[in-house]
């Protein structure tokens, strides 16, 4: 019995030299396992505890703190949308408030002038912000590093000035627009901080899921390559301009939709909410937390939005501490507090033992002629032979 099994195994091996490992290897190679700190590899128990905690949080916190958590979550989603551009693609974009503004004003204008239900304006706000990003980013997409930074600051300033000067008579100038109609979902109006808490939590969850999928997709890989070495990416066939623009548009669409949520929550939109300082704040959240890391950006949002509130008594020193912290970060931990974990391919684990070259070669012979198959290296002339004028095929 055992002898027979061993015999069969030998025959199997003879047929396919790499043996079953080969298929594990190929499967792994096609669908690389995703893990690491940026993964969502929480155990079931932990996830359940987390979900329960998140769902009961408002009753524990009370209205004041719930509202603060709402703000924090809005910033977290905004920072995650900036993270696509700044974190994953490495583009120094400091004008994110402009996209956010386009979304918020779209909602405000449609709701106040045309009485459109707020929730209906959400996709439109996203679409317009995306379109706006496409128009402004296209001519500047080839700019690098600090050049891009300066131009994007310019964009947010121009948008701000346009809003203040009541452009097209639509934006209400420096006072902005007052929104009186609340978000209504199936007749349920979202008014209180607790309502908003669940609404924004849902958005945050969807955002995390979506951006997690995006970062592991072909799109996400392309952004990652561009961030690391744009020229090398371009020379291996990545259409860098296209992907950079796509990153901008995705980030802007998301920021635009958050503009709707913000407008509904705050009930007034005015230019002050979309200033250059807001852009800097978002930029800081991403840089502090860890560019390219979802968990890092969430941590960044918590630290930058919540901590100052928690240590309210130190209010006067807030900017001082903030500035010092940023300088310290740049010196000691430029990759952020929680940089993205490496996405590792685990092929090595399965293939550790098999002798690569020879096995692959024999395997190929067994499989029959392959058009791309190489001649056995032993049959080819060495350089020494070539120098002696032998072995030239042509």
């Amino acid at each position, binding site marked *: 019995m055992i002898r027979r099994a061993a015999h069969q195994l030998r025959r199997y091996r003879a047929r396919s030299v790499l043996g079953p490992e080969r298929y594990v290897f*190929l499967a792994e*190679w*096609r669908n690389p396992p995703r893990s690491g700190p940026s993964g969502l590899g929480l155990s079931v128990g932990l996830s359940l505890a987390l979900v329960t905690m998140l769902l009961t949080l408002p009753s524990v916190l009370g209205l004041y703190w719930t509202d603060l958590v709402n703000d924090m979550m809005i910033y977290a989603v905004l920072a995650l949308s900036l993270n696509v551009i700044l974190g994953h693609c490495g583009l120094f974009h400091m004008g994110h408030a402009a996209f956010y503004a386009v979304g918020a004003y779209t909602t405000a204008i449609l709701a106040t002038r045309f009485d459109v239900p707020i929730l209906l304006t959400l996709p439109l706000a996203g679409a317009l912000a995306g379109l706006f990003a496409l128009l402004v980013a296209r001519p500047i997409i080839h700019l690098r590093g600090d050049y891009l930074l300066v131009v994007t600051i310019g964009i947010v300033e121009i948008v701000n000035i346009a809003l203040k000067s009541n452009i097209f008579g639509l934006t209400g100038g420096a006072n902005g627009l007052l929104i009186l109609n609340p978000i209504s979902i199936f007749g349920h109006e979202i008014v209180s901080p607790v309502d908003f808490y669940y609404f924004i939590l849902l958005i945050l969850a969807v955002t995390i899921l979506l951006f997690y999928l995006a970062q592991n997709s072909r799109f996400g*890989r*392309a952004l990652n*390559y561009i961030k*690391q*070495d744009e*020229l*090398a*990416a*371009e*020379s*291996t*066939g*990545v*259409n*860098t301009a296209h992907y950079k623009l796509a990153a901008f548009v995705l980030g802007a669409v998301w920021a635009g939709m958050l503009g709707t949520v913000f407008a509904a929550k705050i009930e007034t939109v005015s230019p002050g909410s979309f200033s250059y300082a807001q852009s800097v704040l978002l930029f800081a959240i991403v840089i502090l937390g860890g560019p390219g890391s979802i968990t890092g950006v969430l941590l960044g949002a918590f630290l930058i939005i919540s901590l100052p509130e928690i240590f309210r008594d130190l209010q006067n020193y807030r900017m001082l501490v903030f500035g010092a912290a940023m300088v310290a970060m740049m010196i000691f931990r430029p990759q952020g507090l929680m940089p993205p974990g*490496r*996405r*590792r*391919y*685990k*092929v*090595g684990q399965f*293939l550790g033992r098999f002798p*690569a*070259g020879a096995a*692959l*070669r024999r395997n*190929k012979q067994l499989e029959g002629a*392959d058009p*791309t*198959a*190489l*001649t056995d*290296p032993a049959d*080819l*002339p*060495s*350089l020494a032979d*070539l*120098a002696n004028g032998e072995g030239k*095929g*042509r």
Partner: protein
Amino acid sequence: MSYLELRDLRVSYGNIEALHGVSLSVDEGEIVTILGANGAGKTTTLTCISGLVRPASGGIHYKKTALHKTPSHKIVSLGISQSPEGRRVFSPLTVQENLNLGAFTVKDQALTRRNLEWIFELFPRLHERRSQLAGTLSGGEQQMLAIGRALMASPRVLLLDEPSLGLAPIMVQSIFEAIRHINKTGVTIVLVEQNAKAALKLADRGYVLEVGNVVMENSAAALLADPAVQQAYLGG
């Protein structure tokens, strides 16, 4: 018209003209080497072919396609890929991930798998180190990886920019043997080199560039025997 043809290329960086009308042609299946001193314009010539740099005038034709009007990512899809000067592997990614990037333009999974297998066969060292970070590879291994990454796109023409740079003689030999293998499978090769001796031994034909001009063009054997070439590039 030959397989790959560069006609009267002029390239400027700002006010400085780096190529003053370079013409060269490559036939299918050949190994052509471009030699020249530092700053002669070798890299510029290669990056022009791969579309990373655009000529001010002149044209590049591959089969019937005008490459000087084709975006660089499309050039890769057309079957021309480059192992860039200084290797430029992605240091924080593994060998395997770097190779995967090379197949970015390839939709056919089976083809990608075959390419991967034969690259591992060509460079067993890369297979041993496939889960190692590229930044921790030795210079020679990084060069293998840069070539492997370019091969993942299933090129018909492979552009190599100084693959021997900074490598020990034994490593140069094994890289060059690999290049010969690649060529044997039908891939046309354009090889830019400082190591003129090794390059001419490997190549069919060669061009010599001097400050942006082609000053010599001949069969590799003839260049190897040429006293002027020996004097200038082969160390007497």
